[in-house]
């Protein structure tokens, strides 16, 4: 998978979150606050987010790294790094 810009990654994340929590408007998310709190998603939804990000971006996200995806900012930074490295 080739490198992607933070904006591209943010768009992918918004797509994925929109499918999981359709009633929320991703543009209202506070980038530094935990996503799960803002979207009221549980571990099942969160696993689905990880699965879809993996499908769309082609990066493997080990469970030990889940902590890096807790906020929007964290997720964008982590995924940008992983896309560039792969």
């Amino acid at each position, binding site marked *: 998978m080739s490198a992607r810009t933070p904006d591209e990654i943010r768009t992918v994340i918004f797509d994925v979150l929109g499918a999981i929590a359709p*009633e929320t408007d991703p543009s209202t998310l506070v980038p530094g606050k935990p996503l799960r709190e803002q979207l009221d998603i549980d571990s099942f939804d969160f696993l689905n987010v990880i699965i879809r990000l993996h499908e769309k971006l082609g990066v493997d996200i080990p469970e*030990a790294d889940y902590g890096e995806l807790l906020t929007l900012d964290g997720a964008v930074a982590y995924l940008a790094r992983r896309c560039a490295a792969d």
Partner: protein
Amino acid sequence: MREFRMPSLGADMDAGTLVQWMVKPGDTVKRGQVVAVVETQKGAIEVEIWEDGMLDRLVVEPGAKVPVGEVLALLRADGEPAGAAAPAAPPVAPPPPPAIAPAARAAPAVPAAPAARARISPAARKLADELGVDIESVRPAEPGGVVSREDVERAAAARKGAEAPAGKPAAADWHAQMRKAIAAAMSRSKREIPHYYLATDIDVTPVMDWLAAENLRRAVAERLLPVVPLMKAVALTLREVPELNGVWENGAFRPSRPVHLGMAIALRGGGLVAPAIHDADSKGLDQLMADLRDLIMRVRGGRLRSSEMSDPTVTLTNLGEQGVEGVFGVIYPPQVAIVGLGKVVERPWVAGGAVGVRKVMTATLAADHRVSDGHRGGLYLAALGRLLQEPEKLR
């Protein structure tokens, strides 16, 4: 002739609205087959039939709200001749007036002779399914013609215009109904069931470490959620204290051999349901994960099955994800116990005279004192704690 009746889909249900028949007269039905969709206070439920046979006649039409126990359809057992117990004329007496919402009830639908059925294109049938249109009610544009996608679209548009106020309740209304259903069940529980409550802290380091290693070697889509091995442990341990698994009915406890584990699942926007994962004690972790995934998807999509709603033998509630350390549940009648799991936290833990940091979870039990005592409940939690030290036994 056998009678297929409106099932009770939980202690809080007194009536349901028949939304759709999935079968028609003359169809062969098999035990466990979904034959109808019923709208309840907790959403649309797919209702299964529990006898083999041939569907003789539909007694209730879609749109009718009928009380629990009312005859919905008549069924001929295998080999039973047509009309064996049901004279062709006069038709069976209409059922007694329903206690609920008579205005919403359609006249008993007993077509004397089914009209020649229209031919339906597979694409139209599929579209009707997607749009929730009763395909049998769609008429082709030309008499005698084939029902097409266009006919279905027209029927869907007409229904939208004509039935909008009478269709599925608006979100706010549905939410109020759900609250009412929960209030009824929980009030009954607190009124009738003498609860006792126990809690214990369990070192879950072995099972959580085992799970982390297991998930590390799995593809992302095959990973297990932390609750899955806990579900298995909760279900397996019930074999050791069977008086926590079953139902209280007619003044007596009826134990259940299989563990149908009711999973308390919160709904987005409020409310909750606790449908069953059947035979949770004898399923492997991958099967439990698949079942949980399927159940959650159908809870959110509003497509639960009647057996899942009506036959949990015990409930598991897991509020750990919200950061809650302990939850003392309210038993869902007619069940007699609810197990609560809290958040897994790292804590100082003394073992063998030394202090170490371990992953610890508070497990609780609320149980019915008419059936069991604190001593037996305590044995259950102790056995659960022991089993969680041996994750390889949970596979």
